[in-house]
């Protein structure tokens, strides 16, 4: 089973920024992603107690290296300042590279 290298972009952010992220991905023609609610702690304090609006969400995107740069750049530029957010990139490998 041949595996192909690709990138996994993970964004952990406040839940009210999820829409911004998804819209931004769509703008870059990325429609595949996985999301789930999480709790957390960081520079903006403990998140995930109280109202649902104060939870975090993780958005995971398997994406080719070509697109990765632009997406990371735009997220950093437009969202880092105003939202609780952490972003990281990892190397993964997949079977069906044509899916991404």
């Amino acid at each position: 089973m041949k595996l192909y290298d690709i990138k996994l972009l993970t964004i952990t952010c406040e839940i009210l920024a999820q829409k911004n992220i998804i819209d931004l991905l769509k703008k870059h023609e990325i429609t595949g992603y996985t999301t789930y609610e999480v709790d957390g702690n960081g520079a903006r304090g403990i998140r995930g107690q109280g109202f649902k609006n104060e939870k975090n969400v993780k958005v995971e995107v398997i994406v080719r290296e070509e697109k990765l740069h632009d997406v990371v750049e735009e997220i950093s530029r437009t969202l880092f300042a105003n939202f609780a957010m952490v972003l990281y990139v990892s190397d993964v490998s997949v079977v069906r590279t044509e899916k991404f």
Partner: protein
Amino acid sequence: MDILQLIQSNLLTPVIMFFLFGIIAARIKSDLKIPEAISEFLPIYLLAAIGLHGGIEMRNTGFENMLVPMFAAIVLSLLFTLNHYQILRRLGKFNIFDSYALASTYGAVGAVTFSVGLSFLKDQGVTSEGYLAAVLAVLEPVAFIMAIFLTNMAVSKQIRTKRQSFAKDDASDIDMGVHDTGTKLSQVLHESLTGKAIVILLGSIVIGYAIGESGFSSIKIVFDEMFTGAIVIFMIEMGIVAGQRLDDIKKVGLFLTAFAVIMPTFNGIIGVLVATAMGLSLGGAVMFGLLLASASFIAAPAVLRHAIPQANPSLYITSALGITFPYNIIVLLPIMFTVSAIVHNAEGSIDLFHFIAKDLI
């Protein structure tokens, strides 16, 4: 003194006691917590119950009488929002984003506060006009829409000013703070108009109106008799969340703390007087005042984080939930009730109306 007695008897209702209990549970760092699914469901349930009740009432009483109070509520809400902004920006020295966000948080309405108000009136054996549920629904987005509109205007002006004074290569820096504000307005409008609170409230009003008393009978036990019990459960969670925020009150500062108590009192009493002048009942005037006094702490963050992301959410959530909400339901409700009782017993409400009108302009 009458007020103090009323506050005391209000304190001893299950709704308020379970709220205070929730605060204490949070302060002693108990792991008590209403599961998320329940505390997300309860506001939907409460709004459905409020809406159904309001709709049924409106079917009984017609809704001709509703237009003047509705219009008055919208106008007052807009005026108050502008007033908040001036106070926060000029006296409070908050930046433009925080000022608009806070102004609209306090210009908007709180559905949970409204529920508690209804249960307060029930305890006092007093009713209120059913159409106030419709006023609640309409008022929900009003303050947001204005704040968003004004913020957008202000930001566009800023951008233009900066564009003129700086070189073009700096544009991206400005973008970081104020990116694509232009296109965002319609999106945020859609969001705040299709927000779950408005949708369930308006829907339930229409359904209540359509089904009437007889259609309601089969669901009365769930949507009427269980109402206060459901509020009590929700108030535990509200208390816990408010209690967790108490530490943040320091960060909120003295000015905003005072604002969070004085402003609702001012708005609420004006509301009671105007409502009385318009001929609303004793209870109706209290609810009208409460609409204007209340601040939004569930709907506000959802809208404002997108509309004015530069504003610091912990300012508006903490002050609305941690200070204004407890103050409103524990202290201000009895105050407004007393004021309403006094002006409803007094005569010459037309004169009163003139007096208020002068005051506002």
